[in-house]
């Protein structure tokens, strides 16, 4: 294989890393260059990931050995089709959010923080891409920490009291999570003597009958660790505070991508390192299914009672993480594929919703869900995108959310647990109960403050008073949701190639 192409995955970690360390220097020297350079770096990564995606689709997985050391000793980067899809998603959504933050950062953050905000953003990007493509579990741990710390920095960038408290809570709980993960990695090294996932898989298959209890322990450490990191239901306590108090581009990034990359690495460890046999022999899948079902229902219940829009969206993320874990727990081809597709769809939906929430706060300063009267006429484009994302959240056909829910339903039939379908439908209806009132208010009721003085019942569409760099990302993401709902084939192709390898 061509040498330059096999090095590409390495570049999509190293480019944002270098760019992120240029930011503080640049912020001191020429502040206005920060945003364009950061966008340029993200765009470069996006282009590289597109090339990687094309290569992986046509020529199979790309492997790169960092600084030339062969796998059992050195760090291996392995991009199979699922990872290539995920790095495309990560860099694409990051690019969109980056464009949005041109104006949003000036509006929501203090001027002095701008440079540091981009540092944290790019660090987070490089951590996430690295985490998805790394094939070495200790390297994964380091990248988990990079992602976690920079995610905390993105929360605290707001500088408010709430944000600081939320960030400390997030940091402490995330450290418990990574402590558990590192303990698990230590156990794996103890059992197998390898850190490379492919070699662990070979070794574990041989010795799994010798150390049954130790393997149980390791698995439970990983479930707790990644559960805390990915906000699986009873371990989600940090998520609502952190995601609702962060500035809106950061909440979009945290909610749509950061919690998902941990799920991908959990999937890798669970299915590649431990393998299907251990997955079926232990009761790990029952545990995951039960937790996922509880998450799907209770996350929606909690979201229902929230009055602040961003808090409601944050609790809705808890519920959606349940869907993804349900897909993993089912462990059937359709279930897994739908779970992975839901990562994609949810990333689009949540980015769209959080960006809309930020845009609404930018134009009107409203943050509560009961202040949305007449919003559909004041900001037709933003509310249109909001409506699309909400419909997709509920699972209405033609929108992305429908495909993944339909896939999950098929998966639960495959796994022989048809009662799960009821839970999926119930959760979808619960989603409707907390999204539709917002939309209904926005289109069908009049704003009391502005109704005075105008002739009665005049509902006129006005143009959104948003700068183009805020409006364009929202529109692009909303179109992406519809595209995924009508043509899910390309994404499913990528996912199914990897799943065929796993199952």
């Amino acid at each position, binding site marked *: 294989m061509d040498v330059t192409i096999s090095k590409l995955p390495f570049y999509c970690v190293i480019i944002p890393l270098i760019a992120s360390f240029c930011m503080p220097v640049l912020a001191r020297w020429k502040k206005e260059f920060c945003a364009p350079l950061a966008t340029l770096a993200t765009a470069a990564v996006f282009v590289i990931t597109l090339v990687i995606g094309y290569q992986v689709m046509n020529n199979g997985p790309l492997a790169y050995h960092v600084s030339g050391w062969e796998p059992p000793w050195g760090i291996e980067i392995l991009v199979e089709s699922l990872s290539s899809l995920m790095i495309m998603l990560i860099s694409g959504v990051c690019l969109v959010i980056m464009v949005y933050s041109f104006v949003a950062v000036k509006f929501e953050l203090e001027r002095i923080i701008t440079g540091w905000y981009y540092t944290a953003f790019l660090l987070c990007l490089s951590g996430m891409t690295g985490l998805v493509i790394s094939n070495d579990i*200790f390297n994964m*741990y*380091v990248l988990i*920490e990079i992602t976690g*710390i920079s995610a*905390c920095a993105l929360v*605290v960038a707001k500088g408010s*009291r709430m944000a*600081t*408290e939320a*960030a*400390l809570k997030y*940091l*402490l709980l995330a*450290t*418990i999570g990574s*402590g558990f993960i*590192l*303990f698990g990695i*230590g156990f794996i*090294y*103890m059992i197998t003597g390898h*850190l490379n996932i492919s070699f662990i898989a070979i070794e574990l298959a041989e010795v799994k009958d010798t150390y049954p209890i130790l393997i149980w322990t390791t698995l439970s450490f990983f479930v707790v660790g990644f559960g805390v990191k990915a906000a699986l239901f009873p371990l989600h306590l940090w998520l609502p505070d952190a995601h609702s108090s962060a500035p809106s581009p950061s909440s979009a990034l945290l909610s749509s991508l950061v919690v998902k990359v941990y799920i991908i690495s959990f999937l890798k460890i669970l299915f590649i390192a431990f393998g299907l046999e251990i997955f079926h022999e232990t009761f790990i899948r029952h545990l995951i299914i039960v937790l996922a079902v509880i998450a799907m229902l209770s996350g929606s219940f909690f979201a229902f009672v929230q009055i602040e829009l961003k808090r409601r969206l944050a609790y809705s993320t808890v519920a959606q993480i349940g869907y993804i874990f349900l897909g993993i727990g089912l462990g059937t081809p359709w279930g897994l594929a739908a779970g992975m597709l839901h990562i994609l769809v949810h990333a689009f939906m949540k980015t769209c919703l959080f960006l809309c929430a930020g845009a609404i706060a930018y134009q009107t300063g409203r943050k509560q869900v009961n202040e949305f009267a007449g919003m559909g006429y004041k900001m037709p484009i933003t509310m249109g995108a909001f409506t699309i994302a909400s419909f997709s959240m509920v699972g209405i056909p033609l929108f992305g959310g429908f495909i993944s829910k339909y896939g999950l339903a098929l998966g639960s039939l495959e796994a022989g647990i048809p009662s799960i379908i009821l839970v999926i439908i119930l959760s979808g209806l619960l989603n409707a109960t907390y999204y539709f009132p917002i939309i209904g208010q926005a289109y069908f009721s009049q704003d009391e403050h502005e109704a005075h003085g105008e002739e009665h019942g005049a509902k006129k569409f006005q143009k959104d008073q948003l700068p183009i760099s805020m409006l364009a990302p929202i529109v692009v993401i909303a179109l992406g949701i519809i595209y995924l709902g009508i043509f899910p084939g390309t994404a499913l192709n990528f996912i199914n190639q990897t799943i065929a390898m796993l199952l």
Partner: protein
Amino acid sequence: METLQGIVDNYYYMVAIILFVIGMYTMLTHSNMIKKVIAMNIMDASVFLMFVAVGYAHGSQAPIIRDNVEIIYANPLPGALILTGIVVAVSVTAYALSLVVKIYRYYDTCDYDEICEMRSKE
């Protein structure tokens, strides 16, 4: 008896587990934020202890190759890995402490219960 002997022989794993539990318990139950950060460090240290212990075999020595001497070498890889872990732990500690300082400036206390009380009065 055999299990007991095994536990006594591998006492360092036991110590690691006990430290881990102490750290986690303190972190989740104490309301003082500085104590939480200290507990975080105890927890991290326990993981490092466990990891380094993996590389040790009974009677093994530092892996410096000497001629014509038959000795057991300790595995240097876990130690090297944990060096990275220690660096991560140090930076997380610094970061957490800086956040505590920031919270102290807002509330004049770093006790979580007191902060909750203050917030409920507002």
